[in-house]
């Protein structure tokens, strides 16, 4: 078994009297794709917010590559190598597509005021590298986000392409662990099938370890090595997709709700 990249121990968070997450234990191995499922309000997004530093846990510990992430600011977490996307697409809508991806390389680059004022050689080199990396990342999604699109504002993109740009922006931070929050929400079956394939490539070609929240069970089944089901902030079941999907508790948690209900 390969090395543990993320190890979460007895993690809890309470908002007032509400236990959003209760005593959660969870781990991700290097190179794994883990699917997180659960009914609405199960605490999945809170779980992501906690890993990415936007919410501080009440107790417990998050170890990333053996070192604790608790108490770090979101930008420090990103610096350490965890990038995320947002469930309700949050692009920089008035920046161009290229700029959206260029700006997220901020923590991997370092030219400051001096370099830009004097247009130094190092500054020009770094700018060219940022640009090249941005185009490479965007090229991952075929021809949709490159070419004349590069200089267009993100606001003209269709919904599916906004989702793709979100993933590209997270990829550009050069993470080791990628957190995808409902990557195929709002896409049609053909698009989600295509994206599922791309998620597989994110691991095989780019070497990212991936944790993915998803409601679309087809996608979860197709790419996940392991599935974790959360409900009311607790782990209900974990294991292979077949194990989890046949678990009576999971079926009970979902029973009476339309499975495809999207948020």
């Amino acid at each position, binding site marked *: 078994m390969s090395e543990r990249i993320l190890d979460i121990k007895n993690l809890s968070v309470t908002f007032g009297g509400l236990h959003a997450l209760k005593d959660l234990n969870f781990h991700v191995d290097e190179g794994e794709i883990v699917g997180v499922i659960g009914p609405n309000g199960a605490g999945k997004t809170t779980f992501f917010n906690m890993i990415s530093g936007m919410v501080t846990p009440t107790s417990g510990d998050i170890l990333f590559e053996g070192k604790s992430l608790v108490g770090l600011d979101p930008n420090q977490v990103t610096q350490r190598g965890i990038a995320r996307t947002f469930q309700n697409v949050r692009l920089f809508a008035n920046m161009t597509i290229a700029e959206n991806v260029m700006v997220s390389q901020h923590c991997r680059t370092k030219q400051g005021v001096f370099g830009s004022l004097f247009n130094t050689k190092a500054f020009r080199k770094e700018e060219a590298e940022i640009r090249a990396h941005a185009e490479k990342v965007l090229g991952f999604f075929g021809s949709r986000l490159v070419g004349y699109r590069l200089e267009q504002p993100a606001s003209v993109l269709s919904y599916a392409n906004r989702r793709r740009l979100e993933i590209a922006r997270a990829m550009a931070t050069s993470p080791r662990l990628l957190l995808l929050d409902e990557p195929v929400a709002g896409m049609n079956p*053909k698009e989600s099938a295509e994206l599922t394939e791309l998620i597989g490539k994110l691991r095989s070609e780019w070497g990212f370890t991936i944790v993915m929240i998803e409601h679309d069970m087809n996608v979860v089944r197709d790419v996940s090595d392991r599935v974790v089901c959360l409900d009311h902030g607790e782990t209900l079941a974990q294991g292979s997709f077949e194990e989890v999907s046949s678990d009576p508790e999971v079926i009970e948690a979902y029973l009476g709700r339309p499975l495809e209900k999207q948020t």
Partner: protein
Amino acid sequence: MSMATHVDDVLEEIEEVARGAFDLNWQRVLRFGNLLGLALVFIALSGMPVSLDKREVIDGIISLGYLAMLVFPPILGWTVGKEVVLEGMTATKRGARDVVAGFMVGALGGVWVSILVLLVDNYNLRDPLVNWSPELLSLLSFSESVGFGVVAWILLCGVFGAAGAALHLLTPKLRRAVISMILTVVGVSIFQSLIDDLVGGIGESIADPGRLSEFFGEADTPRPRVDSVFDGVIDFIYAQRGGLTIAGAIVLALIAGGLSLSGRGRIAKAKASYNAKTGPERTKQTAIMIAVATVLLIVLPFFTGRITQELLANVGIFLLLALGLNIVVGLAGILDLGYVAFFAVGSYSIAVLTVENPPESWPDWLPTLDGQFGWLLALLITVVLAGLVGLFIGAPVIRMRGDYLAIVTLGFGEIIRILFLSDALGGYFNAAQGITQIPGADFGPLGVAHGTNPRSIFYLVLAFAAISIYVSWRLERSRLGRAWMAVREDESVAEAMGINTVNVKLMAFVVGAVLASFSGAIVSAKVGSVFPTSFLILVSIIILVVVIVGGMGNILGVLAGSFVLIGVLGGPRQPGLLAEFSEYKLLIYGALLIWMMLQRPEGLIPNVRRSRELHQDEFLQDAWLKGEVDTEEDDETSATEVAPA
């Protein structure tokens, strides 16, 4: 088919008959008429007509005081007939109906003034309304009887309203010519002092080329005034006691009308050809334009008189401030209402560092600074100090967002001013007495830039404005600039994408503080004294208005804003071109700001992104029409709609 056309014609005719000249949208007429009335009464009671009556626009015909009121009926008369014609709609036929509507609006406004005339005649409300005076009565009744005034205002406003509405009847080409005639005549008259100064200066230089050889030493050996070669022209256009002569006005109107009719579209064509260019060709043309502008600016002060130089220096000082604030507000999106603090720090530190006699209660434990620093070294120290103050103020403030941040910066702006005034720090800075006799900026062999020689200050300002513009331009297109933009768009996401928002925002604060300290240093050298009262909150507000009106986040916009607001209207203490209006400056600022926010919230020369943000719907519609909106060309089954941001 001809049958159908015939039916259409008949129907149209019937409609025309049914909608006779008096078939107006009375509700609209009433609304605009009352609006006009309110505006006129407000202007009359603000005292503007009386105090501006002495200033003639066209000698013997109309004074600035009357113009201040009579400018409104044509505008509202025009507005009442305006309609929005959307795609697929046919515009209403223009005709007598429009003129009648314009007349009605004007007359209704005139009725309000007439009522005011009667009230002023019969009651004395001078206690709350200071301008409720006999002078106002005599002005409003045209120095005739009250009855004459009552009738005259209704008719006059009606006729002016009708004239405004009649513009709808003209073809666009003619309309543009008429408008440019009116604007030229009024503009040439109002900007008399500038034109006099400029034309006189050039004329003198031509008559006596020797004065071009002077540079910084002008103050010591002023050359005797010589007759400008253009004196004849000036005398022809301008009357003895100010304002245009009738003949001059007619000639100017003819020239303007002729130019407008013959030259229409040339500017638009040049602009289109510039915009069509791309890549190196465009860069080349931009470089040529910048070079030409630079040469013009360098040569300009040789030809202009002191008034123009002084004016341009003031514009430049506020331009520096506005450029700095533009980085903070326009790029990084931090609404800083206490920006004047950095201006104050710049002014005071250079003053203390260069002044020869130290402030009275300068503490013993500090080395006496009797002006042993050169100006440039002092400037360097000032810049470092301003940067430190930027960090010091920024650090506690920067973790707040939005409205809270604005209020806290407002507080810090006042704190800095009060510190300079207080016992705690006042001793070092002479408190309310301020620091005086500050020497000018000494550049060794190049000379000393001081307020007595506006030309030297002009060059000083020009140099620093060039530096500031370069800094803004470079930073906007760098890694830091992108990070500022991201923070402005969505701070939490920017942070999640690995941007240290605290550092990035502090950087904006520091760069802004440094640019403001340039301005402060120049002001100290120019005026030769600093007082705490020069750094009121009003200064912060005016700089912010310059940035907003000009176009937030755009260097050209900030330039335009400084010229329009500071150059034309004047700064908080500095007179502008409209020196006559200086008493009503803030009134005009306010009115302009409200109008801008309603009609053009993105500013005079907007930043592309910001106007896109403010007009998201129009922009997307436009992009859709041009076929640029993403419609998933590779997947026909997907949704083609564009979700709102």
